């Protein structure tokens, strides 16, 4: 669930655009390198994008009595890192803003920053820092963290734009995190499990390709 159209006042809406656009440019450049490298890497890229498409279309009920959807950026994070993932997320967010009135054009910068940049960055940090764990656990943690961090950032973005009269930004953050982040906890776990399932299947089919791209190491990998 993203920040709705028109719900970020100036200057916030364009500040987030300023954050998002340079990262998107880096992501596009990295993407070109990947595409030039091998046709099979291109296939993985399509898979990561499609995965985000599917998961962010599934609005599910959660413990808070409201609905939200996972972000599905975890696969892109693990396969290609945050910069490329930001491009994948930005496409999904544009589609949803144009055709579904979900999120928005004016809030696109903010939503790309949360779902495409900072969430994936957090997930990627977890992926890199947990190299002593099994691959499945690392994928799960990276995907779940990327998902949850997305909505922590969304809450923060709204809190900054709408500080509460009493208690300011911190109180507002509490309010918005109570909605977004809390709802997201079970969905982040769900998304993480599904990401592991897809990743393991890829590993089973084409370990050689994942090794070639430097995603997993060649020998003695524990799944």
């Amino acid at each position, binding site marked *: *669930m993203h*920040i*709705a*159209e*028109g*719900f970020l*006042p100036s200057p916030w809406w364009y500040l987030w655009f300023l954050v998002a656009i340079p990262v998107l440019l880096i992501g596009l450049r990295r993407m070109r390198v990947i595409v030039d490298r091998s046709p099979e890497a291109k*296939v993985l890229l*399509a*898979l990561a*994008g*499609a995965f*985000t*498409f*599917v998961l*962010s*279309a*599934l*609005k*599910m*009920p*959660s413990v*808070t*009595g*409201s*609905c*939200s959807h996972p972000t599905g950026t975890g696969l892109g994070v693990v396969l290609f890192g945050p910069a490329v993932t930001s491009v994948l997320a930005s496409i999904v967010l544009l*589609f*949803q*803003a*144009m*055709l*579904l*009135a*979900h999120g*928005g*054009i*004016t809030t696109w910068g903010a939503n790309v920053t949360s779902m495409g940049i900072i969430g994936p960055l957090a997930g990627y940090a977890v992926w890199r820092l947990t190299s002593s764990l099994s691959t*499945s656990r690392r994928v799960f943690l990276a995907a779940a963290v990327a998902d949850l961090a997305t909505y922590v950032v969304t809450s923060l973005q*709204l809190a900054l734009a*709408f*500080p*509460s*009269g009493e208690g300011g930004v911190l109180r*507002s953050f509490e*309010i*918005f995190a109570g*909605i*977004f982040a809390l709802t*997201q906890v*079970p969905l982040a776990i*769900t998304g993480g*499990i*599904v990401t592991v*399932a*897809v990743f393991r*299947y*890829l590993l089973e*089919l*084409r370990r050689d390709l994942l090794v070639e791209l430097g995603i997993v190491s060649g020998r003695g990998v524990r799944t």
Partner: protein
Amino acid sequence: MRLLFVLLHAVLLAGILPAVVAQEEKWSGADALAEDKIMEITGGEYKPWFSPIWEPPSGEIETFLFSLQAAVGAVVIGYFVGYFRGVREGMRRKGAS
């Protein structure tokens, strides 16, 4: 792998169970709840300064478009996973002959 199989079923269940158990909830989107909170914080003064260029005319059409989004993604995943399988199968046969 068996653990994963169990977990995937748990995921399916977790997707449906809350709505079955707690039927009195409204199950609206978290984004709509956030909009309400923004109104509360600003004392109802905040007016969204831009509205969606196009909105699905009904809930049915919105659901259709969300389903389409998921379906398109699933087709792409299925196609390429099948492609990878085919490549592996081809390599195996080549090795056998």
